[in-house]
């Protein structure tokens, strides 16, 4: 299932949290060889994990991490503006309607539908919170995966070659793309909406309505 969890709540999901940071180490350090920091317990995390980001996660039936991405507002400190200005033509992208999406990660053994499920979750956040674009940082392999699931970003700039290639790209919100992604994920949009509502107090609302 999809989960939407802020950094300061993730301790409530110890299994999910541990496996996410381990999978991130596996993807970004072991497989991609990025210059990221892995702590003595084997977890990859950086300064942006300390800024209370919103994680969108795919939780496997056994409660462990299948995939995830990390969202931050571009009005505050974020990776694209702090580190990748040379890939955005020097444009510091700052808007309440543009959020940053980084650390898109898939567990080694995840189901093929996981990437699409995460994109579907990203769409729920857009629709639910009035976000109009994501600006993301991702690797070469993700470019292919995004294309496969029908959610290709517009690439603004890239650096490096082969598997070291890092790109900055943009996603907009589009109803047609949302349907494609839902189909690839094999998840009804009503279901992902329900997961989103549940994470952000939608159930409270129903309870209130019933008692009113």
């Amino acid at each position, binding site marked *: 299932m999809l989960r939407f969890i*802020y950094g*300061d709540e993730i301790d409530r999901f110890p299994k999910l949290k541990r496996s996410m940071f381990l999978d991130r180490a596996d993807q970004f350090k072991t497989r991609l060889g990025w210059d990221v920091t892995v702590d003595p317990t084997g977890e990859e995390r950086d300064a942006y994990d300390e*800024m*209370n980001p*919103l994680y969108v996660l795919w939780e496997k039936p056994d409660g462990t991490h299948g995939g995830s991405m990390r969202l*931050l*507002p571009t*009005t*505050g*400190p974020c990776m694209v503006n702090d580190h990748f200005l040379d890939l955005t*033509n*020097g*444009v*510091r*992208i*700052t*808007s*309440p*309607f*543009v959020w940053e999406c980084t650390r898109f990660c898939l567990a080694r053994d995840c189901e093929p539908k996981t990437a699409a499920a995460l994109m579907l979750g990203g769409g729920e*956040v857009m629709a*639910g*919170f*009035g976000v*109009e*674009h994501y*600006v993301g940082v991702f690797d070469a392999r993700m470019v292919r995966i995004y294309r496969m699931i029908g959610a290709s970003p*517009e690439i*603004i700039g890239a650096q490096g070659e082969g598997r070291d290639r890092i790109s900055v790209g*943009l996603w*907009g919100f589009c109803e047609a793309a949302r349907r494609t992604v839902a189909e690839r994920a094999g998840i009804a949009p009503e279901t992902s909406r329900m997961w989103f509502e549940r994470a*952000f*107090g*939608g159930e*409270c*609302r129903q309870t*209130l*309505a019933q008692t*009113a």
Partner: protein
Amino acid sequence: MGKIERRETLLGELERAQGLEQLQSAILDLRDHFRVDHMVYHWVSSDGEQFGCGTYSDAWVQRYVDQDYLRVDPVIIGCYQRFHPVDWKRLDWSSKAARAFQAEAISHGVGNQGFSVPIRGPVGQFALFTVSHTCDDEEWARFTEANRRDLILFAHGFNERALELAPGRTPEQSRALSPREIDAMTLVAMGYSRAQVAETLSISEHTLRVYIESARSKLGALNTTHAVARALSRGLIVV
């Protein structure tokens, strides 16, 4: 005056505010314009300093401070360190303390409905912008749906101003337009279509949209036309 023109004027008033008193007068005008019972902006710096402006009664503000309701208020608890806008119905009002707080807030005229926009600033500062009103759920849902975008926009308008008025502010770095944004805005101001601008700059229309949105945000403008007008009047672009 049309709604959009009025909102441009109000943003202008906000941007010219030179101190707390003028921020207060801007928020009164804005509250009247949106026809809601209350509007509040509250700012907490990274070292814990606070200020704000708003339309709650003095008695309620005093009561809130005296009772230290910051520690009970589900709006504060639900929004602090977050960055997504939230309808108050979605917050956790289930505790006895929260329900008592809500009843008291309503008795002070705060309203039974609310919508809050938490804001994260460039140096980790936190702010909260809120509108509240007395009406039924359906009317409130219609209001927030129709006005969400502009409320977020005004929330950030207040925040930009607060950041500039805050002591020790380092000037302007975050709001300067990059050469690429200046190019894009100049071509838009010259009357080129988006497709033509994108082609001239060798970027996609999608990328252009984000560059224009980013420039709009930095200029504190309501929409692209307003952003162009502001960039021209400030001499940032020359046509």
